[in-house]
């Protein structure tokens, strides 16, 4: 593309801008029709009377009338807030540790974080139900060994929800903080030490301060993602942990009250947007995309530095105390020890599902009394499961193709144009990641109902493509960012025309990014549930939808077998994607 820049930049600047941005147009139109319009319409519906079509605040009056909905809103905020806090507290040391590892280990450790991130929420939640349940792994081990007499209440309460939510969100927190931490020049901490700062002070005053934008971005993303959760609270929580998204699903699926669902969705969207706005005021949204943080000035900054200084002094005393109590060797092992524990927390529950899939028992006992393949036989001989599996694969494949094409062209457009609209377009393409999925899903449900796309594969593909576009755009944009555009210019000066440059130089060099984007989109679609709940109906279900339905009815070992299959598919895709993404 920049071969175009080279040859035409001085003479035809106007045409250049046009030609580069043209590539983003299909994506912009697609998102306008299937993302912006349905979400806007949903917000509109919430202020319209469903009978007469006239303006009405009835839905909101109903929310305010009883304290049920406000209480659910409060619960949603509380759970999301605690989840964000715990994810940061657990994720920060892990991200810090991984950022300081030598390159060859860093990639491997990152996989331990990536695999749980991409593992389906359903599989993860199913795993926790098995681990935490009344007859679950922890309780059978605890009662079996006589530590406790009564099974511990670990499930269907706030503890269960927090475990599930934090487990799901720590990877996101780590992966958001990691780039910021990796970008911090390690010599700055050394410099602080040579200038007289003890290690603890050097860390807080320099490293921690510089990592704050990453911490804030991680907190924001975890908080917003948590607002829209429904799988984890539905299965791990009790009545006291009902969250907003669960109410929305009930309103649409069981009560068919669209305008009320619209009002609830609007509340969630507003909550998400307000969080973004506050973040933007404090740190600037560009930090999420890797830009530099804006520097706050005046009294707030002085206050912040003074606060850090106090924390630094306090932790300096703590560090000295710990060293005299535990000794230097033990202290040096604290961080790696903690990080391995967190990794075990992230990885083990999912792995525990594997032996259960091979159980010979009729029940989900742990350890299994014997092993066999009967539950895989049940899975593979059930037409319902097999059709759902085939549909999931097909939908994921088409979604991945569409999202990679749209995201790739958009990334190319943004990399080659220098307009001031670039930031806005980028934000629009990333928006499906910020707006809670449940809001998108409900919005698409209205639209598809009128277009007759409910319970069709096309509807699923469209919905999943909307969700997958941010992932493909970010992946491909990252590759294009490191791509040396002078190579295109070099090819042009060496006599290659634009097509030859594209096929001979550009595409071979960014191929890894394209394959990785394709696979990420594939995974996104393959274990997507929210849209599937609304859009796939009747017999036309996807694998996650079928799992959801089964899990609501009854836990059984078939689910373990299905989970293992989903886990293997996703992990394989992920490992291939990582191989392609990392430069050989």
């Amino acid at each position: 593309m920049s071969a175009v820049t080279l040859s035409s930049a001085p003479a035809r600047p106007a045409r250049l801008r046009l030609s580069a941005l043209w590539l983003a147009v299909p994506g912009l139109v697609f998102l306008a029709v299937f993302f912006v319009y349905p979400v806007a319409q949903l917000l509109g519906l919430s202020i319209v009377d469903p009978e007469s079509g006239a303006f009405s605040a009835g839905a909101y009056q109903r929310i305010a009338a009883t304290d049920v909905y406000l209480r659910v809103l409060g619960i949603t905020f509380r759970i999301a807030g605690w989840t964000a806090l715990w994810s940061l507290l657990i994720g920060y040391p892990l991200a810090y540790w991984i950022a300081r590892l030598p390159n060859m280990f860093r990639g491997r450790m990152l996989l331990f974080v990536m695999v749980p991130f991409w593992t389906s929420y359903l599989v993860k939640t199913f795993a926790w139900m098995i681990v935490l349940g009344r007859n679950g792994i922890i309780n059978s081990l605890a009662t079996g060994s006589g530590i406790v007499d009564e099974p511990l209440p670990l499930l269907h309460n706030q503890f269960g929800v927090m475990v599930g939510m934090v487990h799901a969100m720590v990877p996101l927190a780590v992966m958001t903080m990691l780039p910021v931490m990796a970008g911090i020049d390690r010599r700055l901490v050394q410099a602080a030490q040579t200038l007289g700062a003890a290690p603890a002070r050097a860390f807080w005053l320099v490293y921690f301060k510089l990592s704050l934008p990453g911490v804030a971005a991680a907190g924001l993303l975890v908080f917003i993602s948590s607002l829209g959760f429904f799988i984890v609270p539905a299965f791990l929580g009790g009545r006291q942990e009902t969250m907003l998204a669960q109410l929305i699903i009930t309103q649409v699926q069981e009560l068919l009250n669209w305008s009320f669902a619209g009002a609830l969705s609007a509340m969630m969207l507003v909550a998400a947007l307000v969080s973004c706005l506050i973040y933007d005021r404090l740190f600037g949204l560009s930090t999420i995309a890797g830009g530099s943080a804006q520097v706050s000035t005046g009294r707030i900054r002085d206050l912040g530095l003074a606060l850090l200084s106090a924390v630094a002094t306090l932790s300096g005393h703590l560090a000295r105390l710990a060293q005299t109590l535990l000794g230097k060797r033990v202290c040096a092992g604290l961080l790696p020890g903690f990080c391995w524990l967190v990794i075990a927390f992230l990885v083990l529950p999912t792995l525990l599902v594997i032996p259960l899939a091979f159980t010979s028992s009729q029940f989900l006992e742990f350890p299994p009394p014997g092993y066999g393949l009967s539950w895989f036989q049940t899975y593979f001989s059930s037409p319902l499961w097999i059709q759902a599996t085939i549909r999931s694969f097909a939908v994921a494949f088409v979604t991945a193709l569409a999202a990679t094409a749209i995201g790739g062209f958009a990334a190319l457009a943004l990399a080659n144009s220098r307009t001031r609209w670039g930031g806005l377009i980028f934000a629009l393409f990333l928006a499906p990641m910020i707006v809670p999925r449940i809001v998108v899903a409900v919005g698409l449900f209205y639209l598809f109902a009128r277009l007759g796309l409910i319970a069709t594969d096309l509807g699923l593909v469209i919905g999943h493509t909307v969700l997958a576009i941010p992932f493909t755009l970010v992946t491909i944009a990252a590759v294009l960012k490191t791509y040396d555009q002078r190579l295109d210019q070099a090819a042009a000066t060496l006599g290659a025309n634009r097509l030859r440059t594209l096929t001979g130089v550009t595409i071979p060099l960014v191929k890894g990014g394209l394959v990785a984007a394709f696979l990420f989109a594939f995974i996104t679609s393959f274990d997507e549930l929210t849209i599937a709940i609304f859009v796939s109906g009747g017999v036309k279900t996807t694998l996650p939808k079928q799992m959801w339905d089964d899990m609501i009815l009854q836990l059984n070992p078939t689910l373990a077998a299905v989970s293992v299959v989903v886990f293997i598919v996703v992990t394989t895709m992920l490992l291939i994607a990582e191989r392609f993404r990392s430069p050989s």
Partner: protein
Amino acid sequence: MTATQPKTAKLVVEGLCKRYGATTALEPSSLSVAEGEFLTLLGPSGSGKTTLLQLICGLVEASEGRVVIDGRDQSATPVHQRDIGLVFQHYALFPHLTVAENIAFPLKMRGCASAEVASRVAATLDMVHLGHLAGRFPRELSGGQQQRVALARCFVYQPSIILMDEPLGALDKKLREHMQIEIKRLHRESGATIVYVTHDQEEALAMSDRICLMNHAKIEQLGTPRDIYERPRTAFAADFIGISNIFRGRWDGNGTIETVHGRFALPSGARCQSQDAALVIRPENLHLGAQDGNVVNGCVREVVYAGSETRVIAALDDGSPLVLRLGPDDVVPGIDERIVAGWARDKAVLVA
């Protein structure tokens, strides 16, 4: 250039060594630096000079050996308690602090009263001519200005030893020469002991009291710039500092060396550890015509005019290059002209 102030310390490095598994970053090395001395660690990249610097200030833990400052062993002293300043390559300025806050950082770490911090920061800013930029952030400064902030941040707390790791590496030539003079001035005014790392031999010659030449994780030669330039001990030293014509050959254990270009007379009293030796002649000591019976024949390949001098590059009969430096009054031969060059036997150096 010995300082008169009594404040500065003396640094002794004894058998200091660093190994990472099977690779050795620094062979056991010893050296001592006098009070107020400007010592330069010079060598190609990977020669161990930065490792030695990091060992001295304690950022890297030594495998063996010790660092002694003012007669006190520093091995157990953590980085932040050693009385050492380090100017980093690429400066390592704190991006979240202003220029003044960067410079105040070491004073605050030492618990200085805020009035004293303010006055010392202001004085140091003046010293490096940056008073007007106190409120800026590092990224708003040019490379040369950032460099001066880094120097100010180090000089402000008056450490008795200052280590500098290629501090001028990122600057352009003109600015580099200017900053060399600036650093010499700060050195003179502060009286600090300075250990300076560079791979630029001209910089080392221009700035140092003594040069510690390093190669392959070892100290190759330690001496004054004049020592090392005029009396290199190894072919590497001769080749790395300045331009040299080096003829490898066999020393007869007496007054001559046998090379492929002929048998040459050595300076009186020249000795070498082994018979496998080399003769080094600097370009400015080569003249057209025979001298003391030392003659080589060649054919002119290139003539480079460089203002105060003219460099002639010839090919000897076996194709190896020969470099002569001619003064403004010398007759310059033409390209492809055959020449005879010679040197006074006392001007050549026998090296290992």
